């Protein structure tokens, strides 16, 4: 094998082409293969933080808007009496109170809806 021959042999080849996936990674701005796990961990941490924050907020809002236990019982009892006073009336009263509890306070509703309701009352 002479030097010239070896150079000729080398020139019969060229370096391998990049994989198609590399183009997608570069143009898509995706994470590098070796560091992809960092983004997965970050996404999981962000999801957990979001969950904890929304859960805490939900509990705070619920406790602020829910009637006290005694007040709730009184409301259920009053509504049960209004609906007839039997077991079926009590079940219906419970259902209605739950519906009211889960509804947003009137001030938090859409401004347009509030305005329409106020106009209707007038």
């Amino acid at each position, binding site marked *: *094998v002479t030097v010239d021959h070896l150079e000729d042999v080398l020139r019969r*080849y*060229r*370096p391998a082409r*990049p*994989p198609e*996936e590399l183009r997608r990674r*570069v*143009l898509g701005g995706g994470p590098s293969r070796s560091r992809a796990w960092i983004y997965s961990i970050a996404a999981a941490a962000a999801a957990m933080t979001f969950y904890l924050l929304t859960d805490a907020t939900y509990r705070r809002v619920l406790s602020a808007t829910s009637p006290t236990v005694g007040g709730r019982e009184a409301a259920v009892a009053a509504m049960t009496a209004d609906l007839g006073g039997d077991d079926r009336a009590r079940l219906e009263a419970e259902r209605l109170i739950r519906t009211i509890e889960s509804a947003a306070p009137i001030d938090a509703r859409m401004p347009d809806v509030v305005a329409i309701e106020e106009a209707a009352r007038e």
Partner: protein
Amino acid sequence: MTGLRRDGSRERLAALYDTWAASLFGYAALILVDRAAAADAVHQVFLKLTRAGFTIDERSPAMAAAYLRRAVRNECYSRLRAKKRSIVVAVDAHLLELVEGLDDRPAERLALEQALGELPVEQREVVHLKIWEGLTFQEIAALTGEPADTAASRYRYAIEKLRNILSAKA
């Protein structure tokens, strides 16, 4: 004056990639002797460029080529330093492809890949730049930051060593 200019558009990034990716990937693959690591290195270089909003300036492609080659070289050598290796025994297959229109000789290709893998990284790099990039020793010296004589000597040693390895295997 790097041959690059600020322009973050996707079209320009695609043009930059299509123009240089093959050359840069081949360069990285020959330095690292590892296709997956080479893809990571090239991706990292493009990522740094795009984060900075840079793309190629068509008015100075030679300077852009020099800039990109240097960036890939730095990235590859950083990776080699991190792994504390410059000579790789187990060579990743398919570092080379046959030029279109020539008869395939898998045994020859494999022998060349293995022989290249046995060279010191600096010699492997010079062979790549001389044979496949067509650079002069002066241009190679500008890229590696060493005298042109050193580049020429490395090339000579590399070819001689390749010749010995291939002759022994023949």
